[in-house]
């Protein structure tokens, strides 16, 4: 672990501090946009811990978000909502560990397809379970105020950024990058490949689970096909591609880009928004596979897809 540069930590503390005062003077709309920005930052940062660093691309992070939302809505009324949030993170994490143990043996594009398949499998299973229970959607009544939820989400975004920063500068992070570059060589020089990959997978599921739990309160209802929507996974992948780095900067850029685009287009013309997203993916794969971080900062390390 390298010492944290003072300037970076000052900027980080100042930004989080300033952002936490936003509800005092920002309008409702501004707080709502800031909340979704914080949400995408938290999700993209979590994704980067696993996928940016190890090169094991996940197309199934919606599963963790959905699990978190499901835990929140199931425990609503029996457990304090602020206890359910960490519980949701824990459940997502355990789920990731259970699924990741066999799944992480699958490599490259087959891992990508597998994560997608697992997430869809989970989605349709939960739709089936809810249908047999006669529950087609569940409501959350009496959720905390939007401002409180915004602060919670801000906290999650900060925590996720911190985790990515710490991991990317640690011995663990260098191990993960070695796995990306050449897994067999990494194993040969003594990196505990299986354990590292599984730890990264579990770590990258924890925050998304909590994000799902907070968002369930924000939306105040739960509907499995929306909570497990593959679009969530897709957005995360596009953000990571656009941001394109294996440290904490890429996801911030990607989330900023995406939130701008979605504010501009999503409500007015969702299909145009999706077309632009698809076109961006094609463009970044072909012409800028290293993403914006590389263009802006130059020094970012090579990232994998």
């Amino acid at each position, binding site marked *: 672990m390298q010492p944290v540069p003072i300037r970076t930590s000052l900027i980080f503390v100042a930004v989080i501090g300033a952002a936490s005062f936003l509800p005092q003077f920002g309008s409702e709309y501004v707080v709502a946009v800031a909340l979704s920005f914080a949400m995408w930052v938290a999700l993209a940062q979590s994704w980067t811990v696993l996928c940016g660093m190890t090169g094991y691309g996940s197309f199934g992070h919606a599963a963790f978000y959905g699990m978190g939302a499901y835990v929140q809505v199931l425990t609503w009324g029996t457990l304090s909502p602020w206890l359910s949030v960490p519980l949701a993170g824990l459940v997502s994490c355990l789920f990731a560990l259970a699924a990741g143990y066999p799944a992480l043996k699958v490599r490259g594009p087959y891992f990508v397809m597998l994560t997608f398949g697992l997430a869809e499998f989970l989605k349709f299973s939960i739709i089936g379970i809810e249908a047999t229970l006669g529950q087609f959607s569940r409501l959350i009544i009496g959720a905390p105020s939007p401002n409180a939820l915004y602060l919670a989400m801000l906290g999650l975004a900060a925590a996720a950024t911190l985790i990515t920063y710490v991991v990317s500068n640690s011995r663990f992070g260098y191990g993960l990058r070695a796995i990306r570059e050449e897994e067999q060589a990494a194993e040969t020089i003594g990196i505990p490949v299986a354990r590292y990959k599984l730890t990264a997978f579990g770590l990258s599921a924890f925050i998304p689970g909590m994000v799902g739990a907070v968002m369930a309160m924000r939306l105040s209802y739960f509907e499995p096909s929306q909570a497990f929507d593959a679009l969530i996974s897709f957005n995360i992948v596009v953000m990571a591609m656009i941001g394109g780095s294996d440290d904490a900067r890429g996801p911030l850029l990607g989330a900023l880009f995406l939130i701008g685009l979605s504010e501009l287009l999503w409500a007015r013309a969702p299909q145009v928004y999706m077309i632009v997203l*698809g076109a961006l993916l094609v463009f970044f794969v072909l012409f800028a596979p290293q993403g914006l971080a590389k263009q802006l900062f130059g020094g970012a390390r090579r990232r994998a897809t």
Partner: protein
Amino acid sequence: MSTLFSGQLLFAALVVGSIYVLIALGLNLVFGTMRLLDAAHGDIVMLGAYTSFWLFTLSGMSPLLSMLVAGALSAGFGAAIYYGLFRRLLANTQLSQRLEGNSLLLFFGISIILQNVAALCFDTTPRAYTYLDGIIRFGNVAMTGNRIAVLIIAAVLCAAAFLFLRFHIYGLAIKALIQHRQAAAVVGVNIERIQLLSFAIGFGLAGLAGSLLSMTEQITPFMGFPFTVAGFVTVILGGLGNLTRGMAAGMFLGFVEIYGVALTSPSLHSVLIYGVFIVVLFLQSQGLLGRRPS
């Protein structure tokens, strides 16, 4: 239980299986010759279905005729994106290092674009038309004419593809490219032309399959995705790049789907398909299925 052994289910499984065979054959050609994972394959099926739908509703053209138009348009589209996008991907040494992953992302982007362009142009209401829907009885099995047509045409197309790969010089060149790229180049196979041909044939078959489907299924902009998943299941099950085993695997998946749903319930259809998808990917990673071509 007695319905399980009826000819009715067998017939349904054969029809679904033959569509999967066609879709997987195209997917396998594109993967086998270039190692590209075509996540937009089902969306070509969707475009083929819309082509037949519009030609039928606007000009009354029989889908048996318009399938040729759909096939030709899809083949042309395949050739265009090969020139426009994938030649660049294959030629760039940095990108082709992670060719499979990059192609998956690229095709996924194309898939999202195609689905939403279709949704913008044709809106999202499901569409259908009736053609050859008279019921024909063989013993105690009732079949609609269009399903019989699907079965026969798919069988003819598969036989034609099989003969082409077996005897035609270009078919042999495709097989050579699947077996060993460098060696194929050494013995004088024009790699560029064969890759273009694989794209055109693969996409053309998907368009044809879409036309056939349009006679029996509802058409929506998002109908293609399940077929992409089914295509991948089939191709991985049969061994990537292995064309004949892929045909058998397509039939197998058709039977698993129809009999699985008959044994459980229609609401579990997606759970079943994704379950098979997951199991197949796990098996593939354990090397229990066919090896990939080198």
